[in-house]
């Protein structure tokens, strides 16, 4: 392995560059998408073009997608060795969901 170590270094370096280029692309795309989503959300509410009945669920869905972008692309949860943080984040989401569902269903409904 010693004779071609230089080649290895070169290869891995170009591989790394390519990877980070792809990563940057993904980041930019998701960033652009988030801006678009936010714009749509504001536009939907400001123009009052869609009825209340539909606006709220659409807003919720877009919020969830945005949160997904945030976690998976900007906070790198899609990468390896992020299983534990993912478990805890989803655990926290589950606990919060239960709490809110409980309060909504039994106290305010």
């Amino acid at each position: 392995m010693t004779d071609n170590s230089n080649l290895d270094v070169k290869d891995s370096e170009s591989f790394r560059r390519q990877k980070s280029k792809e990563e940057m692309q993904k980041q930019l795309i998701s960033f652009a998408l988030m801006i678009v989503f936010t714009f749509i959300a504001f536009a939907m509410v400001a123009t009052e073009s869609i009825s209340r009945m539909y606006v709220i669920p659409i807003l919720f869905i877009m919020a969830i997608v945005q949160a997904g972008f945030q976690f998976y692309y900007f906070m790198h949860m899609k990468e390896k060795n992020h299983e534990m943080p993912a478990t805890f984040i989803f655990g926290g989401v589950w606990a919060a969901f239960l709490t809110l569902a409980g309060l909504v269903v039994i106290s305010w409904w």
Partner: protein
Amino acid sequence: MSSITATNKRGFGAFLWDYLTTVDHKKIAHLYLAGGGFFFILGGLEALVIRIQLIKPQNDFVSAGFFNEMITMHGTTMIFLAGMPILIGLMNAAMPLQIGARDVAFPFLNSLSFWLFFFGGVLLNVSFLLGGAPDAGWTSYASLAMQSPGRGVDFYIAGLQIAGAGTLMGGINFLATIITMRAPGMTYMRMPLFTWATFITSVLILFAFPPLTINLFLLMFDRMFDTAFFDVALGGNTIIYQHLFWIFGHPEVYILILPLFGLFSEVFSTFSRKRLFGYTAMVFATMLIAFLGFMVWAHHMFTVGLGPVANSIFAVGTMAIAVPTGIKIFNWILTMWGGQVTVNSAMLWALGFIPSFTIGGMTGVMLGSAVADYQYHDTYFVVAHFHYVIVGGTIFGIFSGLHYWWPKMFGRVLNETLGKVGFWFFFIGFHLTFFIQHFLGLMGMPRRYWVFLHDQGLELGNLISTIGAFAMAVGSTIFIINIVVTAVKGEKAVADPWDGRTLEWSVSSPPPYYNFEQVPLVRGLDPLWIEKMEGDGTMPPGEPLDDVHMPNGSFLPFLMGLGFFVAGFGFIYQTDYTMAYLALYGGMAFAIGCMAVRSVKDDYGYYIPKEELQKALEGEAK
């Protein structure tokens, strides 16, 4: 700064300074045990006052108002200031050693956790000297707390807020430690059960404490800043407090018991000289209990009027928890089955736990039945139930754990005779006190009343209960005597006094301040036992000998705690005195200033040179 000096003879001032600035998990464990022990005695005295008041009908030992303060402070102190801190102390003492780590992930944060707990506890208790303690029950339901005159409830809010922040930090710290700092070969499914329990308890702390924090803030805004979250007259909803409290409160009771489930698993396995029966089932049962624990909070609120559907759902969920708990009870019994059982003090407490806790679990299922609960609700039956699980589980476990780990923590073995005598006093006293309370409750005696009347058939039961309480006090006193006797002339502990199975027994008692010269290599469950059976009885190193990085001690955590303590007074008194803003802003500014200092000033710690570790290793080889 370093604790190298800790082994030298020093004056009391240096000793005190060492503990005030320590970030060593073993010394923080001592602090937690001392702090929790102090509050345990305080809570115990409050319990005695309650029982003396109820020794005979229409007694006037204390006033009704003071009785309310006693029951509130007894519950709050025992749960937040005695039970949990002692558990966190045991976790601090044992968990890093069990996973082969040199300390917790964030040693500075660990020290901050302790000092926040300490100052929160002191703040809560100085209310006795400043016009009366909290008196709205340990749950401090908003409908009652909003009506409570005086400042007692404000002290409850501020004290628990500060102590709770410390607990939350501790939980996060343990999680990070267990996830990132396990020794080579220590996979998740090779972790000792106590470490597993610490892990799952920390998850519960992480998810359960935020609702408490929010709830305390809302109550604080209502009481001190004229909001109306819980004020029905202004459109608020007082039931929300109860929901938020129990969304925290039910996981909280599992926070109190799960660490001891882990501990008992260790004790049964060690003193039966057998591998734990059903290790995998034990791990998943613990997880299942934690998971279900978040979905049953409304069983504390069956009589609130949530309706039959909600009540039924929560009743079924509650009864489901009996399944994983039952799995555990059977696994412990089967661990002992066919083992070489040694019955010493630690094992006695563990053996006493099984029937006591099972009775508590059984009454738990009874209470979980929503229809029957209408009969039991707010009677002494409930009091008997939760004392059977908390005393029969948590307190028995704490005593068992103290006997088990005392040699590791303090380098001396606790006296066996005193340990056993103390156990029997406490055990018999405990059943005398609380067994009869089931029947008092079924006869209709309500909880939290300061007197009961003549000729209702309640005299004898209450008298027996009070006698039992004194027997428990004697048992606890014998334990304290045991500590003193052991400290004065106890036998020096060897590294492995119990023929242990887990990593903490592979280092000297007490361990060196860096725990391991070389982090050990783990080859399976019960790593030390494997080496005893298949190796040379010592842990093989998992890393080459090298300089060890250690954190510096720091006085900042104490100062931060002090800052919040002063700010707490500011919050409490600002409703009446403008001058109190001085304490409020001053305390906050001081605490935040300390944080800024910590953030800006670099502290890289120090290195223990390889040569010193080499010398220590050679010393051990001799």
